[in-house]
């Protein structure tokens, strides 16, 4: 009997831990990882909880598509009026140009007005290696290799000099940031400027590209071995025994149980509901107009592109 009780309590604990982890992941603004934790199927009774309700909340899905609408969680910088004004400004800008859904790992083409360029506009194609910032400060970085030279350009998402942002290939990668492409072989970040956009059929989930890149030998820009990267295949080749030992010493496996840390990094669900309720309608409208425009474009006469 005693054994049974102990067993059941441990199970309850395990379930609780699993739920807590799920909850945090549901709140985080980081894109979801491709590798899912295997779901425990054995459960005595279905538990209807807040987490389940959150999973059904359609607003919460928006935080991956429009992460910049959530403010910086640092309480020292928060002010409801400022955030509201910022959101209206962002929506006003979105009415002017179409800012599409994209993720780290997607391939984008960005056209900006440039007073020094020929024709006064500049088009750059590259893979998005980083996306950060909240509100009007939102920014992303594109990387490409042009004439054997790595080039990275940082763009502000709401910069009025940006004329168009086009997604050439919509996909995710295994990591939140692809900064390791700087130390990878150049073919992993080389993309032709005349790439055709790949159109996904409506309603398909965003595909995850499971490619694992090969790093060049050291020296590296960062200690990639300590960052638990999924998208690098040959990291062990370049390590010495010393690095492995230090990696073990530097590991912080308890971090994922630090609920307070997770909480401080995220916007509470109540705040998120308010924010999405405010902007959801207008975002939907924008999406509809975008769809109409794209439908028109597909049925139109294709333009011949000259070299």
């Amino acid at each position, binding site marked *: 009997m005693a054994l049974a009780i102990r067993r059941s309590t441990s199970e309850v604990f395990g379930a609780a831990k699993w739920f807590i982890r799920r909850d945090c992941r549901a709140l985080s603004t980081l894109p979801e990882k491709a590798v899912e934790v295997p779901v425990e199927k054995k459960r005595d009774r279905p538990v209807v909880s807040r987490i389940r309700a959150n999973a059904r909340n359609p607003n919460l899905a928006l935080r991956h598509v429009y992460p910049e609408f959530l403010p910086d969680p640092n309480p020292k910088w928060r002010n409801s009026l400022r955030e509201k004004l910022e959101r209206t400004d962002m929506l006003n800008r979105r*009415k002017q140009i179409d800012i599409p859904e994209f993720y780290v790992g997607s391939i984008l083409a960005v056209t900006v007005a440039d007073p020094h360029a020929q024709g*006064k506009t500049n088009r750059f194609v590259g893979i998005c290696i980083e996306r950060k910032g909240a509100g009007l*400060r939102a920014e992303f970085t594109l990387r490409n290799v042009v004439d054997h030279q790595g080039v990275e350009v940082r763009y502000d998402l709401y*910069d*009025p000099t940006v*004329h168009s942002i086009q997604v050439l290939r919509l996909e995710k990668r295994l990591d939140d940031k692809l900064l390791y492409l700087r130390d990878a072989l150049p073919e992993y970040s080389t993309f032709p400027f005349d790439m055709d956009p790949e159109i996904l059929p409506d309603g398909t989930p965003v595909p995850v590209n499971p490619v694992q890149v090969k790093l060049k030998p050291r020296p590296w820009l960062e200690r990639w071995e300590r960052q638990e990267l999924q998208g690098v295949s040959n990291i062990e080749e370049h390590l010495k025994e010393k690095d492995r030992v230090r990696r073990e010493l530097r590991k912080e496996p308890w971090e994922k149980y630090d609920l307070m840390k997770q909480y401080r990094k995220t916007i509470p669900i109540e705040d998120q509901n308010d924010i999405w309720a405010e902007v959801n309608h207008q975002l939907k409208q924008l999406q509809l107009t975008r769809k109409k425009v794209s439908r028109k474009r597909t049925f139109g006469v294709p333009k011949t592109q000259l070299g």
Partner: protein
Amino acid sequence: MVTGSLNLLRNSFNKLRIDHIFSRSFQTPRYRPPYWYEPKERVPSEEFITQENKQFIEEVMQDKLQQQASLHSPLVNIDSSKAAEWNPQTRRVGLIARKIGNYPLWTKDGKKVLTTLLQVVDNHVIRYIPPEEFSPMVTKKYVWKEKNKLGCLLVGSETIDPSTVTKEYCGLFNNAGMLPKRHLFRFMVSPESYIPPGTPLQATHFRVGDYIDVRAKTMDRGFQGVIKRWGFKGMPASHGVTKTHRRPGNIGSGGEKARVWPGTKMPGHMGNRWRILRGVKILRINTKHNVIWTLGVAIPGETGAMCYLFDTILPLKKHTTSPAFPTQPFVEDLPLEYYDESVQPFEEQSITFEEN
């Protein structure tokens, strides 16, 4: 003979009493709050308040709030033809604002500029003290001759529950027919820019493109060392340096000057001081929420701190044309946003550069 006169002396001094002792010594004047101020803090005592009492207080508070909301701006009754004209020497009233954060705007030539947002919270003129009656505390530091010619205008911001402050503090606002305000500040104004008490002040008191001075308290950083407080370089981390990485080093020379000179930069308390940032440009004004966007991020204080805005006194950035004088009266159909001509509004199309 001698004893007789001594006795006389003793008898005459017998009635002598010492009541006051005057001593003359140098003392800097102690800071006293201005004479128009009343202590605000109150020790709350809940003992004798019943539920009905509380409800009654709440009702009275609601009534007063409604009264205050229904008050018309006294500016409407004043003849604009009789009012004085603005000239470059006049001093207008300022505003009390709250710093609510920073975010970027873009200029017409595509440059990104960071701005600070200041929200003008519920500002009302509370009292005017003409220059004859105004007698500020005498200080040793400087004699401000202009003070004799300037009147004093009290401005309050942010209405609070009257039961949280003292009766005397509430009394300051009775003349204007207002509920007490959380922040009270005096602005020195020239007599012709008098505004009747009870007038609301809006963000449109300033125009887009104007330059303002901002007075606020800097962030409190506590006791800081010499590197953070004065920007000293410190000493190397290695090469045989021991125990002196962030220390100030030498603080004086020898000989005649064998002492620490006054004003030597040393560790100490940093921040939480009143500072004025002069010549801040206004880029954008929202009339609905009374928010002012100012250029730059150097306005002292953290997000949520209060600051005081004046017309700038910098000679090259002063007003050249007449601003709203004495202040902008409340008008219903103002445009929602005013933009400086250098700023690119987000509602407009993307920036393109012309080929020339």
